[in-house]
């Protein structure tokens, strides 16, 4: 008798868990659906040029700083970000740039596109990892046969 009732209780509990699981999935769906516009899209300059401009959309753009474009003009940093597909985009940034930002080096910026097709960056990110070493050092290590990287 007791075993049967326990089984029933287990069954009840599983139904309960199933309902929770269903609610959970449903709420995730709702969250992701409603927040679709709040997600910052990660785009390359080429993609950005093709996009319909919606100036309220928060974007993240990644690429290389185009050589000879990094200048401090009129109270702001100006530069262009380019990618392998040939696209490039003008960027303005009014704060100080991190030390790692250099011409022909990778960069990630976040911000909004303005009406004149200039990207107004609010944040410039500097990626850092443990393998920052200069090319000369890598060459030297390769010569000595102790280089393990790619």
């Amino acid at each position, binding site marked *: 008798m007791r075993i049967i009732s*326990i089984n029933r*209780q*287990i069954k009840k*509990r*599983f139904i309960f*868990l199933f309902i929770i699981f269903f609610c959970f999935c449903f709420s*995730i769906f709702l*969250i*992701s659906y409603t*927040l679709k516009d*709040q*997600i*910052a*899209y*990660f785009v390359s300059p080429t993609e950005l040029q093709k996009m319909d401009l919606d100036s309220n959309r*928060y974007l*993240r753009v990644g690429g290389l700083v185009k050589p000879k474009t990094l200048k*401090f003009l009129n*109270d*702001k*940093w100006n530069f262009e970000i380019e990618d392998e597909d040939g696209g490039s985009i003008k960027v303005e940034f*009014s*704060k*100080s*740039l*991190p*030390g*790692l*930002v250099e011409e022909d080096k990778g960069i*990630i910026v*976040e911000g909004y596109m303005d009406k004149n097709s200039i990207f107004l960056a609010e*944040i*410039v*990110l*500097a*990626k*850092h*990892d*443990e*393998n*920052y*070493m*200069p090319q000369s*050092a890598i060459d030297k290590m390769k010569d*000595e046969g*102790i280089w*393990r990287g790619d």
Partner: protein
Amino acid sequence: MIPLLGNLIFYLTLFFIIIFYLSWGKKILLQDQILLHLIYLGGIVPFLLLVMGFAISDFSILNVIQNSYIDDPLFYKITSVWGSHEGSILLWIFLINFFGIVFLRSNNNLQIHKQIIFISSLFILYLLLSSNPFVYVEKSSEIDGLGLNPILQHVLFVIHPPTLFLGYIGLIIPFVLASHILATKNFSKKFFKQMLFWSKISWFFLTFGIVLGSYWAYSELGWGGWWFWDPVENISLIPWLLNTALIHSLQVSIKNDQLKLWSLNLALYSFISAVFGTFLVRSNLIVSVHSFATDPLRGLFLVVIIGYLFLVTIRLNIKSIIHFNQDTFSLVSKESFLLLNNIFFIAAALTVFIGTVYPLFSELFFQSSVSVGAPYYNFAFNMLMAPIILLMAFAPQISWSKHENRNNKIWITIIAAGCVSMLTFFYFSNFYFAIAIFIAAPIIIQSLVIIFKKFNKDLRFYSQWLAHLSIAIFIIAAVFTEQFDQEENFIFEKEGKSELLMNNGNSLIIKNIKDTLFSNYQEILVEVSIINHQQEYILTPSKNIYQPSGQITNEVSTINQWLNQYYATISTIESDRVVINLVYKPLINLLWISSILLVFSIFLSIIKRR
């Protein structure tokens, strides 16, 4: 010498672990915990060896060559140990075994230690197979080492990673305790008390580590400020949220024998979330600003470890579903409020989790690369935290397990909070800040009332209120500093004026440009001062050029003005002009003070037990 010794000790340790398993059930070897001590020491010593290797710049270790420079100051040399992936895994193993040996003093249950050892052995295997820091190279006299990444050369690098790791790995003790309790079905109160103690220890370090990391990111350009919802920040927040929930639900389990299974399962998931987070950032599956060097093999091994932990957990989950406990408490009681707190905390953790892994899914299934940024979290996370914070004001006073009617007091507080928030809205005309005041005010009001009313209560009582109060202060400070910061660029031309007027009427004077050579870097420093009512505040932002890489870092200089701060950087320095970027961050120091209070509050509740 050191590479050989390091490898040898690890293989010996693995050998001991095998002996430990083979002799399971045979009491001879296990009786006096010599074997257990040997295994734990075997996990501890290699780390110390590597520390020594770094300290004496032993360039027969590849890891030392790659991460340390002969002229680096000694404390950077030593801390370079955890500057690399290999070293941080070694630190991870060291801490697992360290916690194991400390835990041995208060609980010598072999079943529990068996599991710690097993997890530790998985990490040791991982280290030996995919990221061994003890790789020997022929000594070459020319090599001076490549140096620690300049951007990591910061005082906080010395303490932030170990503190955070202590927090992550501290969760291993609740994990093994919970799985032991679930496996043996021995729900003794002693175990729960130990669990609470260790999750508090972990919470202390985790909170402190997160605060330190936040402060470091704040003081470094390009890391997005004090909180930026970067994956690395998120994955430290998830275990924090779960651990916070765990500490709350354990109170119920210990005091009233309820929510036991709930707490146990939370303990399991807290540790898993910590390991899983490490896996996410170490495998480079998710792009972070704070990226780590990676290779696919490393990720694969971590998957194995997580797979194991998940299997253990899911097996125990199923066990605990079938196991019954009769939780009974009325709707308006401390228990139900703590349960509610738990649900919100877990939901918040899930929100962060979804946001963090969403880019991965979108990459896999929709072929679109997405990064979930601050707007998502600011909306979803804050929506979930707001009710928790409102609850925090009232839940602590509701008594255990019985229904009580004190509604009118609650309403008075809420109305008072509403009035204060209306006033702030009219005064500052900022919607977000008014909302923050509305949410935080009840806690502050209640805290004041209670601290004056029940002055002679014990330490535990104070630690709880202090924790809640510091959260309230934190919210006010965080919203205020984000909403009211001001930023200006000042251009000093070579032939132009050396004094410029600021927006708020103060003036900024450029005083000096210095060029100094240090042992491993050259510093170009600009000295500027803010003149405010005859008081002078000197700021010294600089650009440093590091040897041997030639990498430039842009160093921030800050000066405090009571709770506010000026934050100066060199925007550009050329032959004919210097541009200084100055940000005024109001109440930012209140944010740090409240964070330290939060850490201190848990410290209070830990020491009262001893």
